[in-house]
């Protein structure tokens, strides 16, 4: 069967599965809608958390980032997994014991203040929308790559699917579809990785393959060979980074703390029956995440090795078909600067910006581009990083069904994350803004309806952002983690561990942490991108890592303000005492 037909079949089957699950698990109450009834098995919840967590970026982009950044890419591996240790140890069990529905619920109740709740809602909505626009874009890209559908149409189909199971099923529908999506995405990610590892090293386990010798008879290790090849071409060695140590340190810490403070991740731990289950569930989530995250470095390194082998110093006329296929898709390009008909892959960009094809063919048969060549670099090849994972099955000549599987996997990753984000946005509107702040008399039925309306509105906004991505989206992904690290994490952490933290301290801390981080990122990313170099950064910390300083400011301001304002009321101190003790969690509290 043709690959294209297989892609349609795989994607259609996976969609039918998600919709079937959605019909089976319709939400009947607000508790079903917000926390799936609070009775989800910890292993199941761990798997759903993993799908929720691993977005289109993890599935499609991470291995590409690792391939092109080498050691520097480690910040994402450690940053996006280490946060689960903080979650399991410091937040999840206590928030589950607290037992309400949303993150602003906890902040509003613990700091006995509507202002604190509203500040938390603002942080949450900002963080979640930044994130979700990227997911809808990911859906559109997968559709356009594999199904030859326009990006706009792809986004609309994705919106339709998410609408069906997120609006009907709420958290309950999302949880069980995410389990199915996890299975699809992990299978799709690991199968080509096993083939690839076996193909280069004779060892099918990618984690071991990356530490093994190449099977070309030379007896050199994969990483050693890759280091040598890259250094010869003028790149940094793969196992050596170019970022400064303080920057690597701060980015990793900001990503870890940010992960622990992301509302759509935290809220998943409200769905398990008991506080002790929240700990277990975080552990399982990390096991399921690690299954992909420990393979990604191997996929990245193997992909880089293959790419150099099959592209650099190869005559265009002789290049394998994967190159021309991606060139036709506009994601690879070659500009024959020295006119020798041979492709040279070197450090630096081949030309400014993304390729602009003129529609003509050059002397060697390549698609001609009109971009001005970058005279400072001998590089002639443009490769879109995000193609690395998708191109791997083709580069390694894997069968058509593996390619089809990748399409279904990429969609599963993007849809599951989008649904989780939509849910926290809608519940923060219906529960925190309407029920708890502005219209406390709303009935349970009215609240459920409001949640569904809010979810629908959020899907439409997310879809719009996916179809017309504002230029800043890609620039401000750092926002989501930095802001979560600087605002929500410290407020929740101190809410549990510092009984004396009061409302004045917490609000002042959140506002100052958020304000500082927001201004720093906005200055370097939006207002003055030209100044975005290590020399002008505070302590040499890039905007990606500045959340760490924001977090320190939050802690310092909060503790300072709390020390000379009124102490926390007795009932709040009792609340903190009760969430520290696992006994008596029982049902999620309904109000």
């Amino acid at each position, binding site marked *: 069967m043709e690959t294209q037909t297989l892609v349609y079949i795989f994607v259609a089957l996976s969609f039918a599965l998600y919709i079937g699950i959605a019909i089976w698990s319709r939400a009947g109450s607000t508790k079903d809608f917000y926390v799936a009834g609070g009775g989800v098995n910890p292993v199941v919840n761990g798997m759903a958390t993993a799908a929720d967590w691993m977005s289109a970026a993890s599935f499609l982009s991470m291995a590409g980032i*690792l391939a092109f950044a080498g*050691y520097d890419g*480690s910040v994402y*591996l*450690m940053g996006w*997994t*280490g946060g*689960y*240790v903080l979650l*399991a*140890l*410091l937040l999840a*069990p206590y928030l589950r*014991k607290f037992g309400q529905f949303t993150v602003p619920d906890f902040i509003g109740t613990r700091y006995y203040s509507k202002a604190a709740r509203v500040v938390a809602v603002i942080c949450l909505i900002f963080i979640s929308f930044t994130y979700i626009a990227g997911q809808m874009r990911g859906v559109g890209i997968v559709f356009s790559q594999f199904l030859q559908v326009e990006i706009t149409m792809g986004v609309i189909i994705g919106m339709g699917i998410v609408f069906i199971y997120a609006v009907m099923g709420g958290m309950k529908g999302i949880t069980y579809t995410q389990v199915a999506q996890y299975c699809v995405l992990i299978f799709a990610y690991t199968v080509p990785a096993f083939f690839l590892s076996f193909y280069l090293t004779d060892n099918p386990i990618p*984690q*071991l393959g*990356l*530490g*093994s*010798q190449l099977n070309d008879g030379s007896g050199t*290790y*994969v*990483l*050693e060979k890759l280091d040598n090849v890259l250094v010869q071409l003028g790149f940094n060695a793969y*196992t050596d980074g170019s970022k400064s*140590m303080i920057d*690597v*340190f701060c980015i*990793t810490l900001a990503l870890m703390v940010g992960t622990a403070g992301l509302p759509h991740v935290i809220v998943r731990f409200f769905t398990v029956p*008991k*506080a*002790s289950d929240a*700990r277990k569930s975080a*552990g399982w989530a*990390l*096991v399921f995440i*690690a299954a992909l995250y*420990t393979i990604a*470095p191997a996929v990245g390194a193997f992909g880089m090795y293959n790419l150099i082998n099959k592209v650099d110093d190869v005559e265009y006329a002789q290049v394998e078909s994967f190159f021309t296929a991606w060139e036709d898709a506009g994601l690879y390009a070659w500009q024959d600067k020295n006119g020798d008909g041979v492709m040279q892959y070197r450090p630096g960009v081949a030309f400014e910006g993304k390729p602009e094809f003129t529609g003509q063919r050059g002397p060697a048969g390549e698609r001609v581009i009109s971009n001005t060549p970058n005279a400072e670099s001998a590089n002639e090849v443009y490769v879109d990083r995000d193609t690395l994972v998708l191109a791997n099955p083709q580069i390694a000549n894997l069968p058509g069904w593996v390619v089809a599987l990748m399409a279904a996997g990429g969609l599963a990753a993007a849809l599951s994350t989008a649904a989780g984000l939509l849910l926290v946005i809608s519940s923060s509107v219906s529960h925190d803004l309407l029920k708890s702040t502005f219209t406390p008399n709303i009935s349970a039925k009215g609240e459920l309806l409001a949640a569904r309306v809010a979810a629908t509105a959020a899907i439409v906004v997310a879809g719009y952002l996916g179809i017309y991505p504002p230029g800043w989206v890609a620039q401000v992904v750092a926002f989501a983690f930095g802001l979560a690290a600087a605002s929500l994490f410290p407020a929740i952490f101190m809410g549990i*561990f*510092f*009984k*004396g*933290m009061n409302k004045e*301290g917490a609000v002042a801390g959140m506002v100052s942490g958020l304000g500082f981080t927001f201004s720093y990122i906005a200055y370097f990313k939006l207002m003055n991108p030209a100044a975005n170099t290590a020399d002008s950064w505070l302590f040499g910390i890039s905007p990606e890592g500045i959340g760490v300083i924001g977090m320190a400011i939050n802690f310092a301001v909060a*503790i300072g303000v*709390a*020390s*000379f304002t009124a*102490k*926390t009321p*007795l009932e709040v*101190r*009792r609340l903190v*005492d009760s969430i*520290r*003790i*696992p*006994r008596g*969690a029982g049902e999620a509290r309904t109000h």
Partner: protein
Amino acid sequence: MDDPVSTADHGDADHVGDETTATEKAYWRENTRLLCSLLVVWFAASFGCGILFRDFLDQFSLGGYPLGFWFAQQGSIYIFIVLIAFYAVRMRQIERKYDLDD
């Protein structure tokens, strides 16, 4: 980790309102001690071995992996899993010991 603000600035009088029993206090102290030691390991595995002492560790290797690079891209993740698993099991024992399990 216990409450620097109130003990430092309001004095012990505050704790009159905190009706925690001696068992609950002992339980919490044991929990925070365990947390601190596990966070030390967390920090050492990722920030220590993977970042701060990477150059030193890179002179050793694990198969084809330079050791510091292995910690940064593989080892730290495995250690994180072990940490959470250990914490879940150990906390279960501590809760049972103080009869506070859920």
